[in-house]
């Protein structure tokens, strides 16, 4: 505030009050002598800068708090999405939910195992291709082919285990590429279709072989149709069970019957695993029978042809996934 002006120190003037305020300049600001004036100015500047800094600090704090608020809203939204997705049975592991993380891990674990198996299979197929191109003898080809057929058994075994843990994942075909999924039948490919493709690729075939493979193709198709019919019966029965529970209104007695119907539906779902098992069994048996009909050299060409076909399907999937979109 005002510092005592030396000019008012004169006590000789009786009228002059000791509390006479200091001189005011025309803006009402108190000024002192030059040296004190510059000190005041520095103070004023400092004070102004302090005010400015405080204002900027408040603005930054406000911005930070706003950021926190929007992050919080985002987090809430994500949690809701997660909850919804989990309810829909998607595979998301969570720290608190053991059973679901097991199921999620089961699907992921299978996908990883399948990827490993596929890599191994591709390597073996390339080995066979190399041997054929190098005009290897029947004995050598036989060894590689037998190894490949045994290797197929591995994936069927792995699939069976995975189907026990999560039959829907296998049925969904999500572990295959999109284009392969297009042809999905009961968790895998249709043997009858592969045989149709092979009959063309394997020419020339003896008449006996032609008849045998045609019969095999027909048998595979009949078995596929039979399995499909069983699946349809299962689906129809499941739909009927669930529709039955829809007719109930909300009342205590009907809750019990609802639970009963859910239990029945659950029991029906249990047989899905067996269908996948039998579908894989059909694939396996069909391949084995085919290789009994063919000579070693033809078997080699068949294995290579099948591998090429699926490689192309997978390549198509990659192209499709990478396609430019509007």
């Amino acid at each position, binding site marked *: 505030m005002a510092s005592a002006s030396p000019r008012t120190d004169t006590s000789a003037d009786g009228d002059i009050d000791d509390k006479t305020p200091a001189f005011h300049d025309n803006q009402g600001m108190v000024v002192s002598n030059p040296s004190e004036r510059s000190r005041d100015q520095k103070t004023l500047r400092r004070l102004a800068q302090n005010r400015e800094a405080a204002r900027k600090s408040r603005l930054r704090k406000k911005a930070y708090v706003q950021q926190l608020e929007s992050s919080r809203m985002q987090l809430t939204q994500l949690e809701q999405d997660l909850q919804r997705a989990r309810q829909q049975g998607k595979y998301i592991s969570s720290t608190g939910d053991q059973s679901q993380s097991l199921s999620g891990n089961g699907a992921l674990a299978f996908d990883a195992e399948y990827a490993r198996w596929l890599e191994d299979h591709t390597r073996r197929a390339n080995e066979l291709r190399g041997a054929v191109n190098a005009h290897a003898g029947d004995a050598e080809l036989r060894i590689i082919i037998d190894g490949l057929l045994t290797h197929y058994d591995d994936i069927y075994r792995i699939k069976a285990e995975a189907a026990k843990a999560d039959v829907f994942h296998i049925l969904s075909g999500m572990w295959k590429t999109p284009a392969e999924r297009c042809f999905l039948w009961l968790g895998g490919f249709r043997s009858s279709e592969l045989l149709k493709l092979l009959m063309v690729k394997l020419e020339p075939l003896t008449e006996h072989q032609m008849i045998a493979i045609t*019969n*095999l193709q027909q*048998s*595979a198709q*009949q*078995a596929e*149709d*039979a*399995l499909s*019919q*069983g*699946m349809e*019966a*299962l689906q129809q*029965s499941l739909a009927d069970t669930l529709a039955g529970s829809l007719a109930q209104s909300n009342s205590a007695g009907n809750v019990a019957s609802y639970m009963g119907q859910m239990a029945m539906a659950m*029991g*029906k779902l249990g*047989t899905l695993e*067996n*269908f996948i*098992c*039998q579908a894989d*069994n*059909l694939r396996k*048996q*069909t391949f084995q*029978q085919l290789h*009994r009909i063919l000579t070693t050299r033809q078997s080699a060409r068949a294995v290579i042809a099948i591998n090429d076909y699926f490689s192309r399907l997978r390549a198509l999937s990659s192209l499709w996934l990478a396609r430019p979109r509007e």
Partner: protein
Amino acid sequence: MDTIRGLASNNAAVIFTKSSCFMCHSVKALFYELGASPAIHELDQYANGREMEYALRRLGCNPSVPAVFIGGKYVGSSKDIISLHVDGSLKEKLIEARAIWL
């Protein structure tokens, strides 16, 4: 077991099923497709159905249904039927037992 044996020898092709079994549905469909008219015995319909089920399991049928008999002889469950069908033996057995004719 006697019930099973008795029923199995009554027809050229016999399939034991359960109403809740959808794989049974598939095996039946396959037999019809081949032109066979198998005798179908639903275990639920039999008073001693449970004993019959145990008997089928003792024969080695797992799961107990569908259980297929051709010419009175136990052939197998769905897995066996598919294998036999793929290598042509199923049709042969059916012809041999006169369950189908060429």
